[in-house]
């Protein structure tokens, strides 16, 4: 995005270490991770389980305070959860079951006092139409399929027009066919709205398809291994030689922590080692 490069990054994660505290010990989840997310980025945090990617996302959301370093949005330090960073979780129970689809989408707008009831209903109708759930606006979540529930969660997040949309493996609990459809729809929505996305996944393919830039984290504790560009890939490029080469390269970066280029001599122009 050359036209946007003049402004400062929207989200800055600067030297952030995160720690879990149990009764007996302190466990370091991530160690001095730094990256910048720019406006309209689709920034992916990729790593095996235990690399602290979900914890990082929760820290950006304001649920986990950093033990070291800081997280800034538009220059302001993140200190607590807030409606300028809406999270779409993996779990289906993120939708209050006592609210219909429509009420669910209106919920954050009303809870955060962003809009009055009438305007909230108006905007809810609009985003529900965008995700194609208009016939189900009056349905309760327990009557919907998993993919539809995730669509409601995405609609609810979009309705808030957050500074950053945070997605924590939102499609991981879906079947493969639905997941593909949802990735497609997410990209179409991004094309339409151009929101800023921070997306956590453990699937290399999903990272390449969804993201325009991928941060690769290694586990125990999570450290930044690389940042890779993936803006040239979408769902149609799956299976192409370039896509497979990128997959192999990321695989190498994820698993051979020192020697990533064993069978892969290709140049790495966009690579920035941490």
């Amino acid at each position: 995005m050359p036209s946007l490069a003049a402004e400062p990054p929207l989200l800055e994660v600067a030297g952030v270490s995160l720690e879990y505290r149990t009764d007996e010990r302190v466990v370091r989840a991530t160690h001095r991770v730094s990256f910048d997310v720019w406006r309209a980025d689709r920034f992916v945090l990729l790593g095996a389980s235990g690399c602290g990617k979900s914890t990082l996302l929760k820290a950006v959301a304001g649920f986990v305070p950093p033990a070291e370093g800081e997280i800034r949005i538009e220059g302001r330090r993140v200190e607590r959860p807030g409606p300028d960073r809406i999270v779409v979780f993996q779990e289906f129970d993120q939708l209050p079951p006592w609210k219909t689809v429509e009420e669910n989408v209106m919920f954050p707008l009303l809870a955060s006092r962003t809009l009055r009831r009438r305007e909230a209903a108006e905007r809810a109708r609009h985003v529900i139409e965008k995700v194609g759930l208009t016939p189900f606006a009056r349905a309760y979540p327990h009557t919907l399929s998993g993919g539809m529930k995730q669509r409601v969660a995405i609609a609810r997040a979009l309705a808030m027009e957050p500074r950053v949309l945070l997605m924590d493996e939102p499609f991981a609990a879906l079947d493969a066919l639905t997941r593909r459809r949802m990735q497609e729809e997410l990209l179409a929505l991004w094309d339409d709205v151009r929101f800023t996305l921070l997306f956590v996944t453990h699937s290399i393919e999903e990272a390449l398809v969804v993201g325009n830039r991928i941060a690769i984290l290694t586990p125990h504790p999570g450290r930044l291994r690389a940042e890779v560009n993936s803006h040239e890939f979408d769902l149609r490029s799956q299976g192409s030689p370039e896509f497979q080469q990128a997959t192999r390269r990321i695989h190498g970066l994820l698993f051979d922590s020192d020697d990533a280029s064993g069978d892969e001599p290709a140049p790495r122009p966009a690579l920035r080692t941490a």
Partner: protein
Amino acid sequence: MPTLHPLHARTPPVRPEAEHALEPLPDRPTEVPLPWSARLWNRDAVRRAVILAAVALLWELAARWQDNDLMFPTFGQAVRALVAGMASGELVAKAGISLSVLLQGYGAGVLGAFALTTLAVGTRLGRDLLTTLTAMFNPLPPIALLPLALLWFGLGRGSLVFVLMHSVMWPLAVNTYAGFQAVPATLRMAGRNYGLVGVRYVLQILVPAALPAILAGLKVGWAFAWRTLIAAELVFGASSGKGGLGWYIFQNRNELQTDRVFAGLVVVILIGLLVEGLVFQALERVTVRRWGLQR
């Protein structure tokens, strides 16, 4: 010599592929209604009415076999005493007195439980307060507090309300808090994500999410309150000549009008059934069942 088949015999044959035109669907309705008897039996109310009728029949038979009106009047006699009591207005008035005291005590208990549990989700000290107090007071029978209540609040409504509050508050607080703790972490985070804190967070996230547990607590509390009230009236009787159902039962036992004792008991049972069947079931139907939280 191994008896295995040669390798090629264990590879399945390659069969020709096939694509089929879809079989046309039969020209028959896909839904057939159940016979009326099955539909009738599928209604909860019908099955429960049958159970009640069976109990009444057993009662009638047992009482006739006993043949002692003073000890065990028949169902018919109890019903006649009930109808007479209703017609004279005496039973209705007594039930009204009991219910109004009951509702006051129940309401006070519910408010107390809500305050305690809200405090408990907000702070660690509140949590310790709740667990310690419920561990202390929940096992204490409300009736055991009655002498103390009489000393503090005198012979009257105040004492009853105090004891009722005690009987409702602890079990409801335990249930509500257990329900709060079972609310999924994702739902909690979603609520906090939208900037909900304090009482708004409790009312908009925790209470509806924990409603199955809260309703169970309300039911238990309702039953405890009834028991406590009737027992308290039996123990210390009427206040200034205005006793409730417990007093009615006690008085008629003293006068050996056993059929009226049974009529009083039946009223207690009927009110219990009505509240369970109408109030709580309706509440469940429009909330937890509709939301798919409970089947």
